[in-house]
């Protein structure tokens, strides 16, 4: 809502010195969100006076008409040269005298031109930054000669732009903002609505059939409108200042009264209405073309204004095209009604149509305003358009608003500072409440005040939040991070400690990305939550895997010149998605436990995943020698390292799983539960994302690690006895898994076998075709003694036997 200071001043007795910025500061202090203050006067400085043209001497010796005028500017008469011809002797004009500075830094001085000394300048709208008119100078409708012209031109004004929150519908009017201004300065407020004269209801009436949607509906007939009459300057200026485009006198009057009072009004061309006005639900399939030229299919939950031929307006939102007033309209039916806030909000939402009217009704319009606003508009029609005010139909079905019981000590109890009862009382009265004991009746313009806490807020904001003191923080009763919290943090942090850089990517994906990572048509990761209103139609799904986003981020980095990348990301993914149907319970009391559980269970599983991608070198080349490319095994290793944070040793098995290379993909699990996959990316995926060859990736489900993670690690027995080292090289089939063999050796080595480590793999001429040699380093140690040769030999025999059972032969 844009509000000119001068208009606010008409109703709030603000001290003269108050500037737009001062007022903004005060309004912010009591809770209005003033977004900006436009200072119109700042652009013109120095003497700009109202002058009267006393004489006009036409100078004809020049190529264009030039006038030398004698202008009375109060204390003296000045000769001023002017190139415009749109004024006459006796007109009031805006005269900028030497010393004035106009917008753009244009300094006025006395100078000789066209054979005369021009002692100032007569200004056009454009020269003063008021409008774009430059064909002629401004001819003023009013003003006192010799006085400052700024007030007459609106140039002393400031316009406050206020973002009105949903609870302050009444501030979508100058009346409401002036009321707040008076409250903020504790000065008198004169209600413009109270100044509207009562008008007769007699005369021809337009019948109304109110069936639904409004608890107050008025229709006033106005006839004999002079369609040639135009809006007065003040009205045009104020509409402009408030950001509304002047259209025609009839439309301008309805808008002006709406801005002034907050009551949306609609003028129907009475000649285009057929039969009584009906306020009703739409019938099935009913259509309406609204003023914005959109043909709308009406919803059964909408409310329409209709005549015998059908809907003519979307109640509280927008009028229809068929009954729009135009240049030739002389008879109108003026509607001023009170539609339900939820009703209008629903219609506005369904039709994605927000209007000046709907914004006001949604936030709540003064329920007692319709007749006064209608009268005010009728008065203006009579005054400005010579119209005859006809009869008024007023249907009033309002129900009484219950009083609120407010213990006067409650505001102090909530705020935490002493607020005496008489201060509470005084504040409530100033905002318009009637108070009797602890019973508070709220004013008609405050439908938002329905509960004691609403009144507490009113008291608190007027007392001022700046009076609330500060002491130590409110101390909680918790005992620090839980073991799970800490483990989760460690899991999230671990890849960075291992040398990876954390990134975040958007969780939106589309078919193209799912294709790019090579998901088969039946992959469950293709099924996800679909957004009804995605930002980008190409990406309507929520991610089921972090990899599409992470690979896109990798591509962006490669595109920006990164050679080698080690990225990771963690975040929620959406899994096991089926049709979502969460019940919506009522608010205001705790829903039954079964409903709460249904609401929770209706959501898909949203486990936290962690993914990483490795591109190019793991360790770089440099003056120390060659680098080492990151490969599939790094991805697996890093996955295992992350799991080890949770005390988990992941089991590794070969697997086929997109988007990994079919021969270089590991399934990672714990106790048989899938944790994730790791390995080299499929070459097609690497190509699709333009990543370096052999890029590798891993994705883990952190929720599985969190559930399986041990937070109390058992201590190992650390023996101080000497170690014995034995190496064995075993020849096995090419497809034998090294891990299977290693585990067999470890298991059969018994307590004396401290560790088994694969240290070399060989395949080539020295082993038979189809075979490979796996070399393991064994470390043997006893807890209680130095090992003897017999001990060592016995372990060796037993691991070799285990190897033999798997078809392995000791390499010669």
């Amino acid at each position: 809502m844009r509000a000119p200071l001068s208009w606010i001043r008409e109703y709030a007795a603000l001290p003269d010195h108050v500037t737009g910025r001062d007022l903004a500061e005060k309004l912010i202090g009591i809770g209005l969100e003033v977004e900006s203050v436009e200072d119109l006067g700042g652009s013109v400085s120095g003497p700009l006076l109202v002058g009267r043209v006393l004489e006009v001497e036409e100078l004809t010796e020049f190529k264009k008409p030039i006038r030398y005028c004698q202008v009375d500017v109060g204390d003296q008469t000045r000769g001023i040269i002017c190139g415009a011809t749109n004024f006459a002797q006796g007109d009031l004009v805006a005269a900028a005298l030497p010393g004035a500075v106009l917008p753009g830094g244009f300094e006025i001085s006395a100078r000789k031109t066209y054979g005369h000394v021009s002692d100032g300048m007569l200004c056009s709208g454009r020269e003063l930054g008021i409008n774009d008119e430059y064909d002629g100078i401004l001819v003023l409708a009013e003003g006192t000669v010799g006085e400052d012209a700024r007030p007459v031109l609106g140039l002393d004004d400031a316009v406050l732009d206020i973002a009105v929150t949903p609870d302050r519908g009444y501030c979508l009017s100058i009346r409401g903002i002036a009321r707040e201004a008076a409250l903020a300065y504790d000065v008198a407020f004169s209600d413009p609505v109270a100044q509207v004269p009562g008008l007769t209801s007699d005369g021809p009436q337009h019948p109304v059939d109110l069936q639904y949607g409004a608890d107050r509906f008025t229709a006033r007939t106005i006839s004999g409108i002079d369609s040639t009459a135009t809006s007065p300057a003040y009205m045009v200026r104020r509409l402009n200042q408030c950001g509304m485009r002047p259209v025609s006198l009839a439309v301008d009057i309805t808008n002006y009264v709406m801005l002034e009072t907050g009551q949306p009004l609609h003028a129907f061309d009475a000649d285009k209405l057929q039969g009584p006005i009906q306020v009703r639900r739409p019938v099935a399939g009913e259509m309406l073309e609204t003023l914005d030229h959109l043909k709308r299919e009406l919803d059964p939950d909408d409310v329409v204004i209709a005549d015998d031929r059908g809907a003519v307006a979307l109640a509280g939102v927008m009028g229809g095209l068929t009954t729009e007033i135009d240049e030739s309209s002389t008879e109108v039916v003026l509607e001023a009604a009170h539609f339900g806030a939820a009703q209008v909000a629903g219609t506005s939402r369904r039709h994605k149509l927000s209007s000046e009217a709907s914004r006001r009704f949604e936030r709540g319009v003064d329920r007692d305003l319709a007749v006064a606003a209608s009268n005010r508009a009728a008065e203006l029609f009579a005054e400005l358009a010579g119209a005859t005010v006809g009869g008024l139909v007023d249907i009033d079905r309002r129900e009484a608003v219950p009083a609120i019981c407010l213990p006067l000590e409650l505001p102090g109890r909530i705020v935490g500072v002493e607020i005496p009862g008489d201060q509470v009382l005084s504040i409530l009265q100033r905002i318009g409440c009637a108070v009797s004991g602890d019973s508070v009746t709220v004013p008609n313009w405050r439908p938002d005040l329905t509960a004691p806490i609403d009144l507490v807020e009113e008291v608190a904001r007027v007392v001022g939040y700046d009076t609330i003191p500060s002491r130590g923080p409110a101390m909680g009763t918790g005992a620090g991070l839980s073991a799970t919290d800490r483990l989760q943090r460690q899991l999230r942090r671990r890849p960075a400690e291992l040398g990876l850089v954390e990134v975040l990517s958007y969780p939106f994906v589309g078919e193209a990305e799912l294709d790019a990572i090579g998901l088969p048509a039946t992959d469950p990761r293709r099924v996800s939550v679909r957004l009804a209103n995605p930002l980008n139609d190409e990406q309507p799904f929520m991610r089921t895997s972090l990899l599409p986003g992470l690979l896109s981020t990798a591509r962006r980095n490669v595109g920006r010149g990164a050679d080698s990348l080690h990225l990771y990301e963690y975040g929620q993914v959406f899994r096991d998605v089926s049709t979502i149907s969460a019940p919506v319970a009522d608010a205001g009391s705790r829903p039954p436990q079964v409903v709460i559980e249904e609401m929770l269970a209706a959501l898909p599983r949203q486990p936290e995943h962690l993914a990483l991608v490795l591109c190019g070198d793991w360790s770089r080349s440099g003056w120390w020698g060659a680098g080492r490319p990151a490969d599939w095994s790094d991805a697996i290793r890093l996955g295992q390292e992350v799991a080890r944070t949770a005390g988990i040793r992941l089991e590794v098995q070969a697997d086929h799983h997109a988007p990994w290379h079919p021969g270089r993909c590991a399934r990672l699990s714990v106790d048989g539960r899938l944790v994730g996959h790791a390995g080299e990316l499929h070459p097609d995926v690497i190509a699709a994302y333009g990543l370096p060859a052999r890029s590798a990736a891993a994705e883990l489900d952190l929720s599985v690690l969190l559930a399986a993670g041990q937070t109390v690690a058992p201590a190992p027995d650390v023996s101080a006895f000497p170690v014995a080292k034995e190496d064995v090289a075993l020849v096995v089939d090419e497809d034998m898994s090294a891990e299977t063999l290693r585990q067999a050796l470890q298991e059969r080595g018994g307590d004396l076998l401290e560790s088994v480590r694969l240290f070399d793999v060989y395949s080539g001429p020295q082993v038979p075709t189809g075979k490979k040699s796996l070399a393991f380093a064994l470390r043997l140690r006893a807890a209680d003694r130095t090992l003897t040769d017999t001990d060592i030999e016995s372990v060796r025999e037993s691991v070799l036997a285990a190897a033999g059972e798997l078809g392995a032969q000791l390499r010669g």
Partner: protein
Amino acid sequence: MSAPNKNFDPVTPAALDPANLSAAVDQALSAIAEATDLAGLKQVRIDHAGDRSPLALANREIGALPPSAKAAAGKAVGAARGRVSGALKARESELEEAERQRILTSERVDVTMVNDREPVGARHPIHTISEHIADAFVSIGYGVVEGPELESEWFNFDALNIDRDHPARTMQDTFFVTAADSGAVLRTHTSPLQIRTMLDQSPPVYVVCPGRVYRTDELDATHTPVFHQVEGLAVDRGLTMVDLKSTLDWFAATMFGEGIVTRLRPSYFPFTEPSAEVDLQCFACRGESVGNPDRPCRTCSSEGWIEWGGCGMVNPRVLQSCGVDPEEFTGFAFGMGIERTLMFRHGITDMRDLVEGDVRFTTAFGMDS
């Protein structure tokens, strides 16, 4: 070696002549001093202390002396040999030390050569600052709660006093989910975690809730459709706006430095009442740039205050929706945007830097922002 000499020669052998002994010692010491490396010293040792050295010869001559002369001669030769071996040892140490020094000198490297062989990791500042904030609140007894990003509408709206036709429901530009009656949305704020927490545990409740939230804003320099908030909630007996203001001031000082305070401006949120916007005193200029054109402040645009978040006393209706009796308990809640906090804390001028995942951006923050 000579056979035992029964017939003692009265003449003292030349090798045992004190002058000769002295000369041999002098020659040895001089040779030792002249040795410049360990190899040279080794030859000196052979020549002057070896089996064929003059002193060794002198020693052998002692056996041929009459018993009465043996003691004196032995003492003289022993002293001579002792001097030589002592000098050898000393010189050897010197030369060994010199050799060590030479090797160390020869092993000098250019320590300014940069080793950036191994990758160095870094954490995204959105997450580190979230943990930082959570830690601060954990230190005053708050718990940390996270929750799902796809949320039941009841948790995101209804229970927070945002009913179906409330303007706030469209005001927040929600991402809705198909089908239309799913009853689920991408959460528009972290406030549903207030509801989850209160349904889950009885008061007193003190929690802080960081998380990712969604609104249908296009990405530009100051907006992103996917962003992060941190929410605080306290519900207990007797909590007031003084507790709220005090906690916010403490939070501001903890994050931005001793003495930094907050300012509350009345505002409107459906789930709190009274409600307020939270402004943070500018930590960069501490307000000194206001009305002081000579010292403009980029952090607060010389306003002295920075918009930080929203707060208020938990609306009794919200407590009731969670089964908490507002007659017995009151509460306060507050929420801040993490991106916004990071932007003014670190002077980030473009939101896109926070969301694009450029490694150069994250790396600049290291392991902790």
